[in-house]
């Protein structure tokens, strides 16, 4: 515990001393500076990088010339290994060129520091803000080589930096070059063009001195380079064999037709092609142009070659003429897109009337176009022209969909449609021819028609209902006015045993009640042996004698038998 406190104290003391000394140092330096003595420190240190050339510039803080030298170090940010900057050691001037530094990687952050020395005194280090060389680099002037024809100048541009440039190693193909060209006699007629590394400037006049300058750009990084020095060259005199002009390429089913203009007869021509991307690559491509097989030594101003000789892509084509007097320069290079040179077939339309105020249009591809690559590669849009058959007023619509409807139409009217297919946003406005005209009549009727329909529907639905109701009604009527004479079935059950005539006969007899003495058991047991049934009847009778006598007819027969026997016994 004590030790740590002591250590702390010691540390604090050290810090204090350090501060004092540094303060003293700076104070002395200030004093020295004020005193006018040396120990200059560099100021306003700047870094300039152009291609692979690295420059360091600074100002000296004193104006008077002394024996002051400057030295600089560098290190990669993060490491702790200051290395001497080559070309910037003990230099007396206020700038130095450290291009010989072998930077392995221009995409890493670099730290620089520089200080002044005079004799044994050295200033403190001035540390430059860390930077990435690639981001600080500026694009230098490209190297240009010219060759003149009579109406064109051939340019060969090398990218900025050397071929082994480490700065632009990953960008060599990405440069875009901008040329400013003018006639030496009048600099007012300037023309600016963007060119490939290997390119030609056309439409010039023979035997004129042209001057030009070129600069390189990296558009993706918004970086523009310095212009090259001005180069001037004379175009040659007019060549006795002119070059072919106005090259055109058209597609015709399975072949391409190459045509050009030429003023003279008795000439043979040959045509060559080049894949377009080669133009992006610096260096001579003269070997890369290939002969079009069907267009070698042709004597007409056209030649035909099969489509499958050229897979999809972009190409350049050039034509050269030769006759007895010599060979012409190559014609202007014509760029052509294989995909563009396909024929778009007219679409097939079908028209349907759905309601009375609209027509449904269906656009389909014709059979021939099913197999071509156009529909697969590029979506088509359709220009549809729509009019009433009787009038001339046409409505033009651009439709992307293949099924759509025209609304707000008049019923019972004939409308006509025709359409053609276009490639969307095609600057060349390439389109098919118009399809056949299709006409169709809209459905009839307005609201009355719908009412009629509704009426029919309801009628259909209501018929079974009506029938049912009528049946019910009839039943009611029948029930009320024409009842059936048949009694209900429940009553029948009771009358089933006794026919009607028994009732009539039995009413003639007198209905009397018989009273019987049941307490005399001896009498009862005698009867019992003879007739068990009688006993039941007796009991029945005694019970029923207390009743009102409604059901006395049943007992009458049995009752009469028993009464006779009693009367006999009483008499004994």
């Amino acid at each position, binding site marked *: 515990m004590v030790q740590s406190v002591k250590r702390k104290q010691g540390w604090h003391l050290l810090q204090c001393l350090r501060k004092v000394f540094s303060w003293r140092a700076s104070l002395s330096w200030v004093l020295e500076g004020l005193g006018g003595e040396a120990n200059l420190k560099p100021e306003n240190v700047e870094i300039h990088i152009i291609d692979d050339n690295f420059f360091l510039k600074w100002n000296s803080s004193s104006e008077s010339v002394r024996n002051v030298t400057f030295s600089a170090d560098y290190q990669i940010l993060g490491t702790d290994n200051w290395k001497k900057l080559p070309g910037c050691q003990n230099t007396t001037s206020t700038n130095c060129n450290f291009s010989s530094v072998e930077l392995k990687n221009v995409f890493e952050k670099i730290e620089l520091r520089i200080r002044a020395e005079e004799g044994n005194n050295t200033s403190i280090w001035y540390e430059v803000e860390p930077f990435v060389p690639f981001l600080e680099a500026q694009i230098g002037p490209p190297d240009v080589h010219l060759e003149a024809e009579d109406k064109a100048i051939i340019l060969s541009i090398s990218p900025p930096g050397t071929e082994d440039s480490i700065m632009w190693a990953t960008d060599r193909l990405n440069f875009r070059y901008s040329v400013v060209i003018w006639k030496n006699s009048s600099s007012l007629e300037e023309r600016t063009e963007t060119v490939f590394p290997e*390119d030609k400037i056309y439409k010039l006049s023979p035997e004129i001195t042209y001057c030009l300058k070129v600069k390189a750009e990296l558009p993706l990084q918004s970086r523009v380079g310095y212009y090259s020095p001005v180069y001037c060259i004379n175009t040659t005199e007019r060549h006795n064999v002119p070059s072919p002009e106005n090259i055109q390429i058209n597609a015709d089913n399975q072949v391409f037709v190459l045509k050009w203009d030429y003023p003279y007869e008795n000439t043979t021509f040959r045509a060559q092609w080049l894949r377009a991307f080669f133009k992006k690559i610096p260096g001579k491509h003269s070997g890369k142009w290939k002969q079009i097989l069907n267009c070698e030594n042709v004597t007409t101003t056209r030649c035909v070659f099969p489509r499958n000789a050229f897979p999809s892509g972009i190409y350049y084509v050039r034509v050269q003429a030769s006759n007895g007097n010599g060979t012409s320069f190559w014609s202007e290079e014509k760029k052509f897109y294989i995909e563009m040179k396909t024929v778009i077939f007219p679409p097939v339309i079908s028209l349907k009337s759905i309601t009375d105020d609209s027509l449904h249009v269906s656009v389909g591809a014709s059979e021939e176009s099913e197999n071509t690559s156009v529909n697969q590669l590029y979506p088509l849009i359709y220009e549809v022209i729509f009019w009433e058959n009787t009038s001339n007023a046409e409505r033009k619509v651009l439709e992307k969909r293949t099924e759509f409807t025209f609304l707000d139409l008049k019923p019972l009217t004939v409308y006509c449609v025709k359409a053609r297919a276009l490639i969307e946003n095609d600057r060349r406005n390439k389109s098919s021819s118009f399809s056949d005209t299709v006409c169709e009549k809209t459905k009839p009727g307005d609201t009355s028609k719908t009412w009629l329909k509704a009426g029919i529907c309801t009628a259909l639905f209501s018929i079974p209902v009506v029938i049912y109701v009528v049946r019910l009604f009839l039943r009611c009527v029948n029930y009320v006015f024409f009842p059936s004479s048949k009694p209900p079935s429940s009553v029948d059950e009771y009358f089933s045993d006794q026919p009607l005539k028994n009732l009539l006969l039995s009413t003639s007899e007198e209905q009397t009640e018989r009273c019987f003495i049941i307490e005399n058991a001896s009498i009862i047991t005698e009867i019992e042996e003879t007739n068990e049934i009688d006993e039941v009847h007796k009991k029945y009778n005694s019970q029923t004698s207390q009743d009102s006598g409604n059901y006395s007819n049943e007992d009458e027969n049995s009752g009469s038998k028993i009464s006779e026997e009693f009367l006999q016994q009483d008499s004994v």
Partner: protein
Amino acid sequence: MGLFITGILSLDYNSLNVRLRRVTWQNLRLLRRMSNSFPIECLQESKAFELPQEILSHSQSLKRNIKEAFYKMSRQAFHIFTQDTFKPTWEETHLSQVQVGLDHQLRYLEQCLEEEEDGNEDTGEREETLRSSSPPAGNLELRRYFNRIDRFLKDKKRSPCAWEIVRMEIRRCFYFFQKLTALLRRR
């Protein structure tokens, strides 16, 4: 002189994506077929180039960033395969097929990026519209990666083994981008 591969045809974005994907897969196949198999003796020379996984900055939309990175990467690949000092042991036809394929891929990517750009103008160079507004530092990772490949080729004096290794690396790169794009599409 219609020099740039300008957007004469502005294509439907989805069909463009489909075609881009198809071309990239084609290129992958071409790259694979360029030589029969990876020579075993080259295995010891193989080097880890450390494809940067985080090449996307967060400033712009993710899709556009990936497309841009893919575009730059395709450009670099194209650059590698079209160098003049290119003397590998591969067949000429294979090489030209790869070049054509890569050019296709580049064109589609350019068109893709142009489609995404708002306020796309028909006039002027299309390349200008591809100016990325993300800080250049975001591209440094990719550049460093390609610098490594480039230096590897130079150091090995463009030996056949070096080319084989680089070819493998480009394949990995394309594959990575295809997967990344597919992942984004599903989002």
